[in-house]
């Protein structure tokens, strides 16, 4: 089965196991799509096949992306939708599949979610399963954790990621730690999700990036979605994971449109996504900055550069394999992120790359992050706090001279 669909600024191709041809793909892929629900297998980079018997059986689709669109037609056309609808689709499929999956948050029920991610779900599943909570983030996050310990699989929605600062106590102390301090007795399969990032003049408190605050918490995983395709896949993967997962969405990306497969698919929480293979420089990014990078990439290609763009997706832990392979190929790294300069994801990633791949670098890792400034309301000032495509182009030119 081959599926073709267009992303923004990138095209993707998927091949089935039967017609796997490593030369067709421009990067080595480690995961392949499997048709059957009960088994899947993993193709190692050296071509060996491992059966996935020691892992939970699920359908995995590779997100290995090639720049060339595969010309053979899809067996099913796929369907087009917006990112928030993709999140809802993933959420609904998981709620259908497992009755223990429930949603808790402010205005998720009758209102349908402040960004409509849970629209109509309360009508379908009832008020207890899609629970409208009072405005008490710390307590309802703790409540979700208690529910997870006793057998449910709750999804906590922060109306804005920034509100989860109020839940930091529960997220850090309980969500991250309880599995460990209980000696492995209790699992906390929660998903904490919500929109964050700099929007359109939302003001400082509604424009926060919490990735940096949560990244040190041991015991949690963090992922950031950026396209409808990976939004749905990551949502499903996060719900199925036994670990607590924080899924970072972005306020400005909810209305992105893309065609996604009709078949069920689940993405890998720990993997990065190759957006555009290249040779000259590795650009690592996530969430909204992916689009700024791709916009800059157009300019760069016209100027004769060949950037390799990777959407790291997994903010904690980092996919050092995909990143490492890229660094070994291009020897130059530019990180473009929306997180704060100090102690952000980029800072951690820089450290990780320097530690692991120092020998392969021809130049120091350059990290473009947002300014350490509370996001101003004024549009012009706000524009200057986040990284713009022009800055990315300049940075690449400097790195590659």
């Amino acid at each position, binding site marked *: 089965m081959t599926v073709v669909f267009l992303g923004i600024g990138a095209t993707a191709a998927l091949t089935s196991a039967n017609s796997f041809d490593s030369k067709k793909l421009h990067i080595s892929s480690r995961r392949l799509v499997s048709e059957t629900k009960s088994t899947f297998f993993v193709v*190692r*980079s050296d071509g060996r096949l491992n059966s996935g018997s020691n892992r939970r059986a699920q359908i995995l689709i590779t997100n290995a992306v090639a720049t060339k669109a595969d010309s053979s037609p899809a067996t099913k056309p796929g369907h087009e939708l917006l990112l928030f609808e993709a999140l809802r689709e993933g959420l609904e499929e998981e709620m259908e599949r497992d*009755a*223990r999956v*429930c949603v808790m948050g402010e205005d998720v029920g009758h209102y349908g979610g402040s960004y409509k991610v849970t629209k109509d779900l309360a009508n379908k599943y*009832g008020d*207890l*399963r899609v629970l409208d*909570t*009072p405005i*008490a983030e*710390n*307590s*309802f*996050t*703790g*409540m*979700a*954790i*208690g*529910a*997870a*310990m*006793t*057998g*449910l699989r709750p999804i906590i929605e922060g109306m804005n990621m920034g509100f989860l600062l109020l839940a930091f*106590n*529960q997220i850090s*102390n*309980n969500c991250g730690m*309880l*599995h*460990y*301090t*209980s*000696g*492995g*007795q*209790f699992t*906390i*399969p929660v998903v904490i999700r919500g929109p964050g990032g700099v929007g359109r003049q939302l003001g400082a408190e509604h424009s926060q990036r919490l990735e940096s605050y949560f990244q040190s918490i041991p*015991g949690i*995983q963090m992922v950031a979605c950026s396209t409808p395709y990976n939004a749905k896949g990551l949502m499903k993967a996060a719900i199925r*994971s*036994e*670990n607590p997962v924080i899924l970072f969405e972005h306020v400005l990306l909810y209305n992105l449109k893309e065609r996604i497969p009709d078949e069920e698919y689940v993405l890998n*929480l*720990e*993997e990065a996504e190759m957006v555009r293979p290249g040779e000259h420089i590795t650009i690592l990014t996530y969430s909204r900055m992916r689009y700024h990078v791709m916009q800059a990439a157009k300019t760069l290609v016209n100027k004769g550069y060949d950037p390799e763009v990777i959407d790291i997706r*997994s903010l*904690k*832990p*980092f*996919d*050092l*394999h*995909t990143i*490492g392979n890229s660094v070994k190929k291009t020897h130059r790294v530019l990180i473009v992120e929306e997180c704060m300069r100090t102690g952000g994801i980029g800072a951690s990633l820089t450290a990780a790359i320097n530690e*692991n*791949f120092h020998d392969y670098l021809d130049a120091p890792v350059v990290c473009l992050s947002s300014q350490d400034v509370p996001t101003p309301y004024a549009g012009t000032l706000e524009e200057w706090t986040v990284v713009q495509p022009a800055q990315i182009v300049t940075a690449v030119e400097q790195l590659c001279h």
Partner: protein
Amino acid sequence: MSSAFSTISTIQPLHRTIDNPSISPLLGSTSTHKLCSFHVCNRTASASSVRRRFSVVADSDVVKQQKTKSGSSLSSLLITKEEGLELYEDMVLGRSFEDMCAQMYYRGKMFGFVHLYNGQEAVSTGFIKLLTKEDCVVSTYRDHVHALSKGVPARQVMSELFGKTTGCCRGQGGSMHMFSKEYNVLGGFAFIGEGIPVSTGAAFTSKYRREVLKKANADQVTLAFFGDGTCNNGQFFECLNMAALWKLPIVFVVENNLWAIGMSHLRATSDPEIWKKGPAFGMPGVHIDGMDVLKVRKVAKEAVERARRGEGPTLIECETYRFRGHSLADPDELRDPAEKAHYATRDPITALKKYMIENKLVNEAELKAIDKKIDEAVEDAVEFADASPYPVRTQLLENVFADPKGFGIGPDGRYRCEDPKFTEGTAHV
């Protein structure tokens, strides 16, 4: 059906002692904040008459008020011999265990913060002995006895305190984090108030099972234990609201021992009567004598059954006292010795013993036999803990993630958790 809440009329409520200073438990600290300031705090002239009212202030359609017979006292037998022995044994276990903890601490077998429960046994025993194995208990850092009452073997608790791998949490939790999946002890929390939302969640699961998953016999009740200091914390109020809003099967048990380390409850709280805060959220609030296990048990039974029937939460304030300091590191200099002496006379174990002997339920020999049995059990727990191994290096990273794929993919393309150095515990994560 008679409501046990009406027994408050026979119980010495907190405020009643103002009439009778000689019984005053609220001698407060040796500083100037004594009982008189409690008078001053209450501005209205009719305040004292308000406080004299014994009836439970609750939603009228929630709790039926029943008149008790005048002069009804608790000398009508409330327990059978078997129940009495069970309660006695549990309280003695709690007391002996905590005394042994203190000894072991001073001998260097355990470290860190250890908070002992001496004096409060009536609350733990009175409530937890009414529960089934599937019911959940959530506690604070003063959790050894809650775990023991719920059924966690003394050996496992002692091993946990010694930091051995045979502890209930494999030595990873320690004194303040007692967990047991088998006995449904959901912790053990170091920050106060942190466990209350977790307990609310456990109660939510019970309701969810009944109403969404349609399991008709899902009626597990959750008990949340916490102290007077916690009742000024936001999580307390937020959870009272949610529990009452959704009629969750939970009982909030306040162990008001009047002191939050060195902070007297009266100095920290604008209205010290915590039971009053229940009705503000739409649930019954009850105040009981937490030094008397029979009184506790009677009210607890009502509250637990109310929750089990699906009628919602209850807030129960237990007036109790801890004989030792806040923790083993607390010099306990602030509390008035007269206050301590007063509560020592209300020792719950002595009280139950007296009750059972006076009412000819048991004889001295039977109780002594239990004392001996418990002594041996605690000694055995210490021996077991002493002989148990310490955790090895490989244990360090095992429980960070339920799914160890969460450690990510290493540069070589394999999951970190597959690296043999990882399982040896020497890998750099």
